[in-house]
């Protein structure tokens, strides 16, 4: 075995370079995650005028390659690369248009599908580019004022003299803030449709969280956007715009 390693030393180095990063982590703390580790043994002390080195031997990868394949065998040449993909929905036009003098409600949806092979899953956060989020040159919709900061309200309601803009998140990986127990959000395991509305914020809000891989199918998170103006909100006419951003991170 050792003769084999000696003969193919350059190939070993080549394979180690090809192995790339390993996504799964074997140890972690809140400040770091250790992607790979190995138990080292043996070794010796070497020195020269300028340095001293204590070395150890780790597990040894083997490998060979051909035109058709690369073989990554052995401990350090572990697994495939970690990846994360995010679908890109089109821009959203809320509909129907609202007549300010009569009031109205406009809805729209954006669906992001996250796929990752990371065994630790992913997190998805959402934010708006400004506060208030939905605005025009002449005015804006108030970001939905929720009862408890950071906790969605179970019901959507808008006084007649106000205009609000907010959203809810739905999907199998949705964060617990958006789950409900039939009457309150942030508790329970239900995902009642069209409930648990929250205001947009310029700070990122976690909307989906998963602790396992979901490849190849991925998981969709639906963001339902709603704008409502009361009949006497005093909104001015025009095109109101918002930019909603998401960040998906493989854990």
């Amino acid at each position, binding site marked *: 075995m050792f003769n084999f390693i000696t003969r193919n030393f350059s190939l070993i180095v080549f394979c*180690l370079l090809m192995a790339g990063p390993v996504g799964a982590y074997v140890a972690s703390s809140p400040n770091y995650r250790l992607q790979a580790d190995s138990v080292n043994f043996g070794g010796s002390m070497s020195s020269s005028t300028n340095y001293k080195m204590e070395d150890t031997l780790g597990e040894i990868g083997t490998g060979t390659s051909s035109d058709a394949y690369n073989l990554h065998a052995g401990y*350090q040449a572990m697994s495939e690369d970690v990846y994360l993909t995010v679908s890109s929905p089109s821009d*959203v036009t809320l509909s129907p248009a609202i007549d300010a*003098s*009569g009031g109205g409600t406009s809805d729209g949806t954006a669906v992001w599908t996250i796929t990752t092979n990371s065994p630790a899953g992913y997190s998805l956060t959402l934010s708006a580019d400004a506060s208030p989020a939905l605005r025009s040159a002449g005015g804006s919709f108030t970001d939905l004022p929720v009862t408890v900061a950071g*906790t969605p309200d179970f019901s959507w309601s808008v006084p007649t003299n106000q205009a609000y803009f907010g959203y809810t998140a739905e999907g199998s990986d949705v964060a617990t803030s958006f789950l409900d127990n039939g009457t309150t959000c942030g508790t329970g395991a239900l995902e009642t449709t069209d409930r648990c509305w929250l205001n947009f914020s310029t700070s990122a809000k976690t909307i989906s969280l998963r602790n396992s891989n979901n490849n190849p199918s991925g998981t969709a998170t639906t963001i339902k956007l709603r704008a409502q103006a009361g*009949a006497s909100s005093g909104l001015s006419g025009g095109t109101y715009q*918002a930019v*909603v951003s998401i*960040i998906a991170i493989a854990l």
Partner: protein
Amino acid sequence: MSLKKMFKKSNYFFILPVVLALLLIGGFVWSATDAVNVSLSVTATTATTCTDPLANNYGGALPCTYGGGGGGLTCDDPKATNYGAEEACVYSTKCEDRQAFNYGEDLPCLYRETVPNVSNFQAEFNINQQKIYLTWSNPNFEGFEAVRIVRSTFGIPANPEDGAVVYEGSAENVVDPAVEFRVRYYYTAFVKNQAGEYSSGAVASAIGLKEGEICPDGNCGSDPFAFLPGAKSTVTISDFILRQIGELTKYFSAGAKVKIQGTKNLMIEIDKNSLPTVLKTIGVVISDPKNVTRSFSFIMRDDGEGRYLANLSPFWRNGVFPVTIYVINYQDQTVKKITGSLQVAGVSFLRTSGLIDALEKYIDPLVTMMGLGAGLSQIILMTTNVHSVYDLYLLLMRLIYSFLSWLGIRRKRPEWGTVFDAVTKQPIDPAYVTVENGTGKEVTSAITDIDGRFGFLLPKDVYYIKVGKTNYRFPSTTLKGKTQDELYDNLYFGTPLAHDGNQIIRLNVPLDPIGFDWNEFAKTKINFFQIYTRKEATRRRVLAGVFYTGFALSLFKVVVAPSVLDFSLLIAYVGILVYQKVRIIKHKIISIRRANGEPLAFSLVRLYLPGIDQPIKSASTDQLGRLYVLVRPGTYYLTVEEKMPDGSYHKIHQSAPFAMPKGVLDQDIII
């Protein structure tokens, strides 16, 4: 080629960069971003019809109306006060649930509880050993896993990874060795629950100083925050919220004196919005009302949802506790300080005096040990012949058998006979009696009772009986060849025994004492009596003392802080007392002695019915001249035969007939 040569020096220059590259690559995090543009067209024409598709009269005359089921602005939230009304929901957000942390507050009820902190976390520098001693009290809650203590010299560790781990476990003290002089050490104790969540942290700090040195940072007290710059400025900020389960929510602000329940956990909370945006930590220092230089501190943690929180365990006593809250902005190194006090009430005297804790810590095991020891000693006192550890084992076995018989699990055996000391004629207990069949196989066994008696339930067969006892020999050689002696008949020496299954057997088995010389004893018995009586009296006093002390402690514990174990122990004590009383009635012990006080050891006493020459009952006294007899109530006369130095017996006394209404001798006999 050896491994060593293979990985020789020159190759390291090649391998190292590769390894470093791998480490770097391995540390990348994978992420992606995306954004959508959202647009909405709002028209401000003067509409004449309702244009809201969610309204009931969509397309109809203005104004839009809502409600009547299925969409629209009907209040369909059962939590709203106007549930079902054709209008936007209105909420009374007051929390009405007493179990919630924010009971009475104008907010939806909150039930989440954070992990409580340790209490009374103190750090003290020991100048002789140059070590810092850390002590604290663990919180008492289900799910408690461990305490992690983290140390730093830069500042207060704000989270469980913010420093070196000094200790992790469930003890309540630890020593931090090898600390340097004139260096301030900050410790934060984080409580971990079984779900892996940590408390916000309790803080303590100490600095090692040599004799006569002054504190380099001007802070010699135990308040770890006092050294911070700007700590002297007092500024009013928003109220801190104090919550306890089942209590109304209270607010703590500068100068406030807030009443809280000392027996419940206390959650302290403040909304992030009322604090500086760049903030590292909030520290709370609670001082001991009896000694203001002594305090315990903890930090409030950002819970990630807009609040700073800390959870305190119940207080150990009532009182007015001065409180100082430091809001520390590490960016510009300023501190806002709020002072006030907590008026703690509701803590019982017993808990305050530490009595209950002391009881649970020290007295419980003591009571248990004493009880067991005293019980065991009582058992020993009740027997006569404990010579070895093996005898103790036999006693224990006998206890178990009698318990089983009492329960009915083991059938009561008919009495076959008595094992007795061939020289002194005393019954021997405990002795181990075995029965073998014709092939030498052991069929059954028994342990003699307090009167030396044994018995068996056996089918018809031929048996051999063997008896074992430490310091005794079987079969007896002293009485070999005899069929009876002064006290016992049907003497048995190991010969085959034909049992027909029904016959009542009467066997009396003598055992020769090894190492006991009656002659020698007869010469020195006066000295023996003096010493033995004193020893015996002392022994009884000590054992009784242990027993009654254990009994008193057990009773006290049951009254003050009872538990199942305490009740069981108390019942055991009472049981032993009752048993003793019962025994005394039935086994009243008297002694026989001469007028000069000398006891008549190993003498024989026989009871006769007047007019009949046959003794009804015979017994021998022990080494101190004591015996007991139990006969049917009636009138008897007795004789006393003294054992002579040569081993024979000589009658020295005959009484006149006397009444024994209870069937026991109740008076010492003086000759």
